[in-house]
């Protein structure tokens, strides 16, 4: 959508400053460029309440990890937090936190991954700590007894196999594109968590917009992981032992996209891939993965029904993890806590095959992960 240019809006002055001409309509309010930028900034910074200067002990820097994918969401988040940090040091001479920006380079398994050289442009514009970490590093970082690592060591790989070999063999063993699209972000998340721990970061700042969180709600439901929904969208402690934060959670995807062009200077040159406008829904007829299907769906709902998108997230947020569930065993792949030992796809009402326990508890995979990897890991 980006900037609206239909006539009735162009003639209207900004609803907030009542002065400048409006450039787009945000949830029925025509806004000028300045007021729109302030609107997005405020929504994001409001979510960073716990990282204000007064919460930081003097002489002790709080570090948070910000995963950068060169997509719209993480770039806007970086831009806004950079602005927040500048404002903090202008006002008080110090900041409430510092950023570790980490780019996970998945080019060994994903040919469409952005060029790591892109980082340089971002780095020049926003001076923070940066790191590029190849996805396969996960195999070197995990403790040797990690269930994921044990499971991922395909027996047919020679002991001399490199971590690149291992990750390629894992991903090529996944037969459907839905499964690949499911597993790749999980590996990435897992690696970011390990990086955050190693770098002494106290949390991870994800770029997910309202729209993305709604997509996740429905796609995790569709993938059979409804049991884990509270963990996917909530701010705070995660099953991976480090807090997750979603500062973009009150901003719609289309608003982040508009921000790219309206920020001063624009962020468009830093964005990788089919991000900016229009291309997002054009491929809906050839949707190949569950995640893509939900992405297209919510990007269309968001057009006219932004509050319904937000309400989906709010609704999923009402699901409660019972205290006893926090100690439940975790899935070896997605790490979500599985209660009552309900691993695998068997042993429930919808399973008609009594006594078939092949992908049962021993696989250590939750219901949803058992669908993604039907024969279990290895």
């Amino acid at each position, binding site marked *: 959508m980006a900037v609206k240019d239909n006539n009735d809006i162009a003639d209207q002055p900004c609803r907030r400053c009542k002065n400048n001409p409006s450039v787009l309509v945000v*949830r*029925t309010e025509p806004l000028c460029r300045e007021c729109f930028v302030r609107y997005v900034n405020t929504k994001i910074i409001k979510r960073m309440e716990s990282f204000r200067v007064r919460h930081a002990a003097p002489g002790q820097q709080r570090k948070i990890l910000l995963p950068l994918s060169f997509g719209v969401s993480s770039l806007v988040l970086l831009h806004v937090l950079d602005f927040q940090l500048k404002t903090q040091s202008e006002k008080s001479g110090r900041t409430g936190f510092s950023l570790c920006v980490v780019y996970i380079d998945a080019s060994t398994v994903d040919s469409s991954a952005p060029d790591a050289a892109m980082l340089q442009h971002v780095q020049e514009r926003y001076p923070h700590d940066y790191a590029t970490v190849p996805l396969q590093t996960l195999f070197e970082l995990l403790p040797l007894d990690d269930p994921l690592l044990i499971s991922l060591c395909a027996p047919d790989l020679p002991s001399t196999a490199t971590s690149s070999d291992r990750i390629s063999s894992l991903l090529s063993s996944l037969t*459907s594109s*839905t499964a690949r699209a499911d597993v790749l972000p999980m590996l990435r998340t897992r690696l970011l968590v390990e990086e955050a721990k190693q770098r002494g970061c106290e949390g991870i700042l994800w770029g997910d917009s309202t729209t993305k969180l709604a997509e996740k*709600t*429905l796609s*995790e*439901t*569709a*993938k*059979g*992981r*409804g*049991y884990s*929904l*509270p963990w996917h969208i909530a701010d705070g402690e995660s099953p991976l032992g480090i807090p997750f934060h979603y500062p973009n959670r009150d901003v719609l995807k289309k608003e982040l996209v508009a921000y790219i062009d309206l920020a001063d200077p624009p962020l468009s040159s830093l964005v990788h891939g089919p991000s900016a406008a229009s291309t997002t829904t054009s491929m809906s007829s050839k*949707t*190949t*993965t*569950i995640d893509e*299907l939900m992405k297209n*769906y919510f990007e269309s*709902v968001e057009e*006219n*029904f*932004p*509050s*319904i998108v*937000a*309400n*989906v997230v*709010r*609704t*999923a947020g*009402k*699901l*409660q*993890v*019972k205290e006893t569930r926090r100690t439940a065993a975790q899935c070896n792949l997605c790490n979500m806590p599985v209660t009552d030992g*309900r691993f695998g796809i068997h042993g*429930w*009402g*919808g399973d*008609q095959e*009594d006594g078939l326990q092949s992908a049962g508890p021993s696989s250590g995979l939750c*219901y*949803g992960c058992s*669908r993604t990897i039907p024969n279990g890991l290895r």
Partner: protein
Amino acid sequence: MPPKAPTLCAICKTNRALILRPKDHSKLCKPCFITVFETEIHHTITSNSLFHRGEKIAIGASGGKDSTVLASVLKTLNERYDYGLELVLLSIDEGIKGYRDDSLETVKRNAKQYDMPLTILGYEELYGWTMDQVVEQVGKKGNCTYCGVFRRQALDRGAARLGVRHVVTGHNADDVAETVLMNLLRGDLPRLSRSTSIVTSTPAAASGDLKSHTNIKRSKPLKYAYEKEIVLYAHHKNLDYFSTECIYSPEAFRGSARALIKNLERVRPSAILDVVRSGEDMAKLVPGNDDDRSCGGACSSNVPAAEEEEGGCGSANGRTAGGEMAHMERHLAQNEAAAENELEVEITIPKPKKAGNKKPKANGMAPQKPNKQQVLGQCKICGYISSQEVCKACVLLEGLNKSQPKNRIEVVYDEKENQVLDGATNGMAKAALGPG
């Protein structure tokens, strides 16, 4: 080109595979498909202990594929496994001229084919109004509200009249998955939770009165069966069914959810079952649902079974497609704006508040008290289970009767009002006095 060896059935490994099973894409021969389909429903019935020996079961029959397959399979299983059930067919005639003619003819033939007694009950008998009369009274716009509310209660009222305590419906896995997604989109967790439950009996609110229609058990033996497999089964068994199309298009949320389910099934055939599984698991996380109960939490939801949304026009509320979403969007946006301005304005979903109501007794006043008896009261007019003091059907009937002076004079809950409605309920009670 050398003749390709025919693919053999994955189960018997003998016959040629002719069917690609929609659920898991396994290749089966016709007899093995029929058997595995029936066996799975038997499994659902036994593992959930849906029935008990000697039980009389009313099959909600519309002549459509789902209920026809349900009747056929239940007859087969009842004989094969000696369930000892007494199966009867129950059809509802909404009284829309021409609309049910073909489907009711189908049900009549089914009754002969399956040798099951059939009862057809009209809205006229149940409510005193046919749908055609309702439309005449209220106009085309808005009649869906009546259709939906009346239909939801019709099976229970009908069953009570037959002296049957248990109604089975043809809801399949696609329907359940659709309802899970729809209720996520609408933000309705209690209904989501309710819809995933295989048994949705409404607890008797006060008395253990056997004739009352407040304690009818409802179950969905086809809950895990794919719609496509139901169609295949009907086809290969040469079942006689009628392709009913609801004459009203589904409202926007359901339409949206239905389209998503179809697309999901295309991407990953197991997705329908996976959504059902997710829905069952989420039901346990809904606040207020006590997951320590044997039912898995789903039946402690605060939504009476009969208020559960059903497919088709059942939830259309008389709005045009898209109107439902636009309406909710406006409403939510108002709430957001109010919250943003930190106003003390609380705009909640407008409940149909009735002018004549006395102060509601704790109903909705103490929302956090999980006292089921208070939440699930009985309609003070007809005794039907209801979260409101007067059930939706009675509210609508009251409006109808009020606006038609030649039939109705009084609108207060006096003797006359009760007589009309009791006409339906007492009639049922009498009919139900027969052999139990």
